[in-house]
Structure formats: structure tokens, C-alpha cells
């Protein structure tokens, strides 16, 4: 079956219930950019999981995002919200309120805001511009849509008292590396690190200590949008 995910034409057989998760990404015809075959999958690494559909989901996720490195793309464990054509990405360890924060965007901005992936959006650098994409690998709640938006900024969430700070590029490395697929082979690591280097330098990245206050979305939105609007100021 042929799909178009993150602007890549993917050829992949119908593994488990993946076709149901992927119907909005189906493509009728086109040149194949990436192939995921039965032989690419290492299902045995998920042997502690019982559900074969879940195993296919986890493994195709791992394989897709590893292959994505060859297309200047990477996974970030995050929730991605789009407003007015720009993506606001909320990342961090589990339990820090990524989905809750994305949910606050829907409350604060209504139909203007859309969550395109609530767990693992794809980030790609194309002609020097970073984009976030909805993908079928989006976590338990299944929230995703086949959309693309330029990234305004990334915000790492922590628990605490409503303080948002812009991080220096070198402060972001450990945060980003902890939330992407880094159990990769050396050749792939040689693709991932240069990508993380560019992400750290080119995309405004923040840290937000929050306690899920209803006004949090308005705060992160205004700070991140402002940084995006001024992103070329420093270079002048």
C-alpha cells in the first residue's frame, strides 16, 4: 500500500491494524521514496507486548522514524498544535502535561487550534525551514491529522510555577536527545546529531514550568509567536 507521510511517499504492506490508523495518509499513485518491508521489522524486540497490532504499531513507528533521518527528518516525543499555519510543539518527559497543555490550546483558541499529532510528530528540515507533520504514530488517544505546518517554536514542559524561559542552543541538546529515537545505529546517529545541531540553532526552544493553569496556552502562545516573528532580528 502507498501512503504519503511527512511529504514522503511510503510503500508499506498492511501490517496488523495499521491500515485503519493510516487511511487519511493513503496515496493512489506516485513514486516511492521510502519502503518499509516485512524484513525491516524486528518484532522480537517487543516480545513483552501481547497485542500483535500494538507490536506492529510500535515497530513501524521505530522503523519509519529511523528511516526518516535520511530525509532530514526526526521524531520528537511531543504534542503539536497548529494555529494560523504555524506549529507550536510541546515536548518533555511523560507526565509533564504535554497533552493537557495542547488541550488548553483547544479551550483557549477554539476552532483556530488543531492538534496534528498528540505524541510523536515528525519534524523535517526542508530548504532551511523546519516543519512539523501529523503522522499515524500519535499515541494512545489516536489524535492526528495529515497536516504540515512551519514550526514556530518548541517548548519543553516541566512541573512548577508558571515560568517560561528561552533556552540557549547548547542547553537544548540533552532535552531534545531525551525525547527522540536515540537507540539507533552509528550511521543513523551520524545523521541525527547534525539534525539536532540545526534544530537547536534554528528553532526557538523554550522551557516552561507549569501547573496546568487555564491561561497557560495564552502565555506560551504569545511568547513563542513573538520569538518566531523576531527570529531574524539577531542576525541583522
Amino acid at each position, binding site marked *: 500500500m502507498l501512503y504519503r507521510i511527512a511529504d514522503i511517499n511510503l510503500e508499506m504492506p498492511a501490517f496488523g491494524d495499521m491500515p485503519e490508523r493510516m487511511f487519511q495518509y493513503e496515496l493512489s499513485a506516485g513514486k516511492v521514496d521510502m519502503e518499509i518491508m516485512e524484513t525491516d521489522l524486528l518484532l522480537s524486540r517487543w516480545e513483552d507486548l501481547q497485542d500483535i497490532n500494538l507490536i506492529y504499531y510500535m515497530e513501524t513507528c521505530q522503523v519509519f522514524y529511523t528511516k526518516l533521518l535520511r530525509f532530514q527528518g526526526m521524531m520528537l516525543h511531543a504534542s503539536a498544535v497548529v494555529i494560523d499555519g504555524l506549529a507550536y510543539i510541546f515536548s518533555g518527559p511523560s507526565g509533564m502535561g504535554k497533552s493537557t497543555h495542547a488541550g488548553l490550546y483547544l479551550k483557549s483558541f477554539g476552532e483556530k487550534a488543531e492538534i496534528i499529532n498528540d505524541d510523536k510528530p515528525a519534524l523535517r528540515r526542508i530548504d532551511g525551514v523546519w516543519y512539523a507533520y501529523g503522522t499515524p504514530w500519535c499515541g494512545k488517544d489516536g489524535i492526528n491529522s495529515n497536516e504540515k505546518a512551519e514550526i514556530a517554536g518548541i517548548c519543553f514542559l516541566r512541573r512548577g510555577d508558571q515560568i517560561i524561559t528561552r533556552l540557549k542552543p*547548547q542547553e537544548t541538546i540533552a532535552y531534545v*536527545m531525551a525525547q527522540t529515537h*536515540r*537507540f*539507533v545505529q552509528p550511521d543513523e*546517529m551520524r545523521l541525527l546529531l547534525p539534525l539536532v*545541531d540545526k534544530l*537547536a*540553532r534554528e528553532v526557538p526552544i523554550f522551557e516552561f514550568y507549569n501547573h496546568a493553569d487555564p491561561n497557560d496556552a495564552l502565555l506560551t502562545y504569545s511568547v513563542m509567536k513573538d520569538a518566531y516573528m523576531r527570529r531574524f532580528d539577531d542576525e541583522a
Partner: protein
Amino acid sequence: MKHNPEFVLYSVAGKQILAPTGRLAAELNGMMALNDIGAFIWKALEEETTFEQLLSKIMSKYEVDRETAEKDLNKFLDTLRSFQAILE
């Protein structure tokens, strides 16, 4: 001795990052940041090399007395060994 090729060194946002890959990435669950001398030593360890060869390389590049260089090199190699980053 030489360095373990399962680690990748790359300058990320101006920091020399030494990242484990594959099985080691899962085991170690972190990365190392090296300073300039550390990165220099890591690169020198790409080929099979002895402690003496390493020491003379460091002393020809950096202004340091033999005693200090030996002590610091030992310490650094021990750190690398603790991360399984050295193949003896």
C-alpha cells in the same frame, strides 16, 4: 586500545557530544559532553594506539608537564572505560 565505534562524536550547538548508539544507548541512557582535549583524545583513539603514544600526542599539542598529562589522561580513560567506550 582504541575507542568503541558504537559511540559517535559530533559538535552539536558548539558542544562536543559523545553519543552511545544501539544497545549501549539503551543501557547508558545518556550522553557525554567532551571538552577540546577530550575530543582530541577521542579522535586519536580512532586507530589502535598505546597509552605512551597518546601521551606524547597530547604533550606535543598542549602545554602540559608529563606528570599532569599522565594523571589526567588516566582519569579520562577511566571515565571512558566506565561507559564501555574503550576497547582494550
